[in-house]
């Protein structure tokens, strides 16, 4: 009958109206700044730079290889390589970024920088409140602003971080084994060359820190003179 559907519709909206006062699940709104919905683990928004240890600038994993800068589709990453070198977690001498800037306003959150990074140095963050009142300086993030600790990474993406830590621990272990073997070989060579001479200093480094397990080698022992 004409008008029947209108009555049904009115009943439905009335049910919504009164129901929203009594049923909590009807009112799905999350009142954002006060209440926050827990982000899913897969949330990815903007990259950050990982560092190990206590000092963000000294512990940066980034070696300024500039792969991410070249791969970045919108060219939002700007890297300047350092002149000097410092050892990385496996003890290899590597450059570090003198300048590492990402333009927040240009980044399109594609995660390609993360996928191409061979050093596990750049990862995606979950932070999304990136707005600022300074649109020139405020949106260009320097390496000081981008650097975040491995502990932070473990809190935001636990599964991924555990996998990464495990892999890096294994690599460090392998590097250590190789270094020890190399040191032993060098020591043997030295001993053979000059029998009765003083023992090499390189031998002591092999039995350095053995129990860093999950924590991926905060500061690798000095092995700079040995080639793995």
């Amino acid at each position, binding site marked *: *009958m*004409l*008008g029947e559907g*209108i009555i049904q*519709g*009115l009943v*439905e*909206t*009335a049910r*919504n*109206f009164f*129901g*929203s*006062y009594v049923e909590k699940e*009807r*009112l*799905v*709104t999350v*009142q954002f700044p006060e209440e926050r919905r827990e982000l899913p683990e897969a949330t990815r928004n903007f990259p950050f730079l990982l560092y190990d240890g206590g000092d963000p600038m000294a512990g940066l994993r980034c070696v300024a290889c500039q792969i991410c800068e070249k791969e970045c589709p919108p060219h939002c990453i700007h890297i300047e390589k350092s002149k000097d070198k410092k050892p990385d977690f496996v003890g290899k001498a590597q450059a570090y970024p003198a300048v590492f800037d990402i333009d927040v306003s240009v980044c399109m959150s594609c995660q390609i920088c993360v996928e191409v990074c061979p050093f596990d140095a750049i990862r995606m963050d979950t932070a999304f409140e990136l707005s600022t009142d300074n649109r020139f300086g405020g949106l260009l993030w320097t390496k000081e602003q981008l650097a975040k600790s491995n502990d932070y990474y473990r809190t935001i993406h636990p599964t991924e971080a555990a996998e990464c830590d495990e892999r890096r621990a294994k690599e460090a272990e392998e590097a250590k084994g190789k270094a020890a073997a190399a040191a032993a070989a060098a020591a043997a060579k030295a001993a053979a060359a000059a029998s009765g001479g003083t023992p090499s200093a390189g031998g002591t480094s092999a039995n350095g820190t053995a129990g860093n397990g999950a924590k991926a080698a905060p500061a690798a022992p000095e092995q700079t003179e040995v080639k793995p």
Partner: protein
Amino acid sequence: MNAAGQVDQIFVTIKSWLVGHAPAPFQTLVSIVLMIAAIIVVFAALFALTVLLERKGLGRIQNRYGPNRVGPFGVLQPIADALKALTKEDVVPRAADAVVHYLAPLVLVGTVFLAFAVLPIGRNMTAVNLDAGVLFFFAIGSATELSIFMAGWSSRNKYSLLGAMRAIAQMVSYEIPLILSAVAVVMMSGTLSTVAIVEQQAHYTAGIAHWNVFTPWGLAGFILFMIAAMAETNRSPFDLPEGESEIIAGYFLEYSGFKFALFFLAEYVEMMAVSGMAITLFLGGWSSPLSFLQWFPSWGWFFLKLLAFLGVFIWIRGTLPRLRMDQLMNFAWKFMLPMTLIVIFSAGLWRFLAPPVVGPGVLGAVIRWLVCALVIFAPYIVLARTLERGRKIEKRTYRFAE
């Protein structure tokens, strides 16, 4: 006069007391100014309240909170809205007819507020008791069409003009059922004076008021009147003139800042005016529904009824989607117009089936009621069936380009 009576007449007393202070030659003028000021202040405040209720109500209907940031529970939202409207830039298009563009919102607000002149807001609380009050109301109501067309035409924008054309077509079409459903009441009460119409309804039999809505022709006429009133005030689901999705905002597209706010105000005040008229014609104006509730002040009853009407307006807006132009016109001419004519016929029948004809007592009253209701209901069924015949309602399928 007892306490309830004093409260009932408190505004009348205050006004006569204030007027008494003015020198004799100016007393009429002061009285007029006081009434105008009261109407503007009260209904503008009610507009602010309605906007808040609408935004909260629609929010709840759509399972969200609605505005809740300004003040506790968002009650200060209308103030924030008003400040925003006042501080916004007033843009007039270069090609617009500046004078008409400027005048349109003023004419609209002026005519809309004029309609309140004849509405009995309470006992002895009618600004002007015209002998032809109902006629005056509808005449003033038609004048809003002029200002809407002024707005649409002077903006020199195709969408504005389309909106104005739609508004004119719609308002002209729906004015006929609006007035015809009021004609039944005028026929039965034998007067065009709004005050007299309300006073006739403020009588009680067995504790129940003689409201027109309690008769079959009154009930049907009331529903038809409200549908037509909704179309007349461009309220959803008849808000084609301002269809955002099709013609952006219709006739007030080129208005910004306070002029836009005036259009907004006028829409809501017009809604209150037609609701007030519906209350006057069908729901006994300021009278209470049951005789033992008469201690409640008459103006209180009026505003309670008005708020209920506004609530229903909001409810319907939250429920129904916008009509299409052909649906709108078909509904006006093929359904509303015949139904209003049938209601007039039923009202006539009601008049001639007055107690001595069908028999005395309760039985006679019941027979009279049922006969008159059947006279309306049977044609309604026939009409609804006829209109739905040949129309297939099925799930819409979409065909895409290959």
